[in-house]
């Protein structure tokens, strides 16, 4: 049976703005799709635009639990800390009628800023308007306002993200499913030059549970894919690195990936 490469992540793994992106089907030119081609694996991508780390772990686990007989290799590119995954009261525009991704951009009073950033992309602006309407009808908008105003903070977000990473890691280990993790941005582990695990013994304890032997990073201080692409001045679309960055990133992590992929 052919092995399946199951990829989880946010827009960087979905491949938004890549040359074959149509917004519906995951790109075949993303870093993870290119790694799947290296090994002739069947490529399954459960990445979703804007999703946070709880959502990435949830979607990967969901696929694994529904496909217990498949021979799977998992890749995950973990995303930004400040994104939340929440099972809302049911609504037909939510993922699976239940799940919402909540980001700082879902708060109100963003209009001027968004218009300016997306002014060159009419489709993205349209998508933004549609999303704004949905946040009103689902309750995500008011919830985002309350969440970011009163409750959201870096400590809790690191705690949640790391807990989800460890949760998935331990499930994969238990089920003997091989995997490789990487990250989009080192704010997952760092506050500028300060390591987040130095915050207190709880975060340090969680950090020590993460098996970094199965991780690939893009430079010093656990640099992420997006930071690496900015540092090396790869061409970008409206907000994302384009095909060349993905091709070079796949080349950069290929050796470690193949080592983990071929491990028994």
């Amino acid at each position, binding site marked *: 049976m052919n092995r399946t490469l199951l990829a989880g992540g946010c827009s960087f793994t979905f491949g938004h703005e890549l040359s074959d992106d149509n917004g519906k089907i995951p790109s075949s030119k993303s870093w993870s799709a290119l790694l799947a081609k290296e090994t002739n694996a069947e490529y399954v991508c459960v990445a979703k635009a804007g999703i946070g780390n709880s959502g990435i772990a949830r979607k990967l686990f969901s696929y694994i639990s529904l496909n217990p007989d498949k021979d799977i290799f998992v890749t995950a590119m973990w995303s930004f800390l400040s994104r939340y995954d929440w099972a809302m009261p049911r609504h037909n525009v939510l993922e699976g009628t239940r799940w919402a991704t909540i980001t700082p951009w879902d*708060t109100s009073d963003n209009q001027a800023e968004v218009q300016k*950033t997306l002014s060159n992309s009419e489709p993205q602006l349209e998508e933004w308007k549609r999303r704004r309407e949905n946040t009103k009808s689902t309750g995500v908008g008011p919830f985002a306002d309350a969440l970011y105003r009163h409750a959201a903070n870096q400590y809790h977000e690191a705690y949640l993200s790391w807990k989800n990473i460890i949760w998935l890691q331990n499930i994969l280990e238990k089920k003997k499913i091989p995997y490789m993790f990487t990250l989009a941005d080192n704010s997952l582990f760092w506050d500028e030059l300060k390591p987040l695990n130095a915050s207190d013994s709880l975060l340090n304890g969680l950090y020590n549970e993460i098996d970094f032997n199965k991780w690939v990073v893009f430079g010093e201080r656990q640099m992420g894919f997006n930071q690496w692409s900015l540092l090396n001045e790869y061409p970008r679309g409206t907000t994302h690195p384009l095909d060349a960055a993905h091709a070079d990133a796949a080349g950069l992590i290929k050796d470690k990936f193949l080592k983990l992929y071929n491990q028994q």
Partner: protein
Amino acid sequence: MLGWLKSLINKIRLERQYRKRLKELKKKDPFIYK
């Protein structure tokens, strides 16, 4: 007597802190809906 003024100043201070925090978060994660 100046309670209402203190409360107003506190409200403005909290609002400014919130907006600053939100601005920093958006700078760190500039991906508007993707």
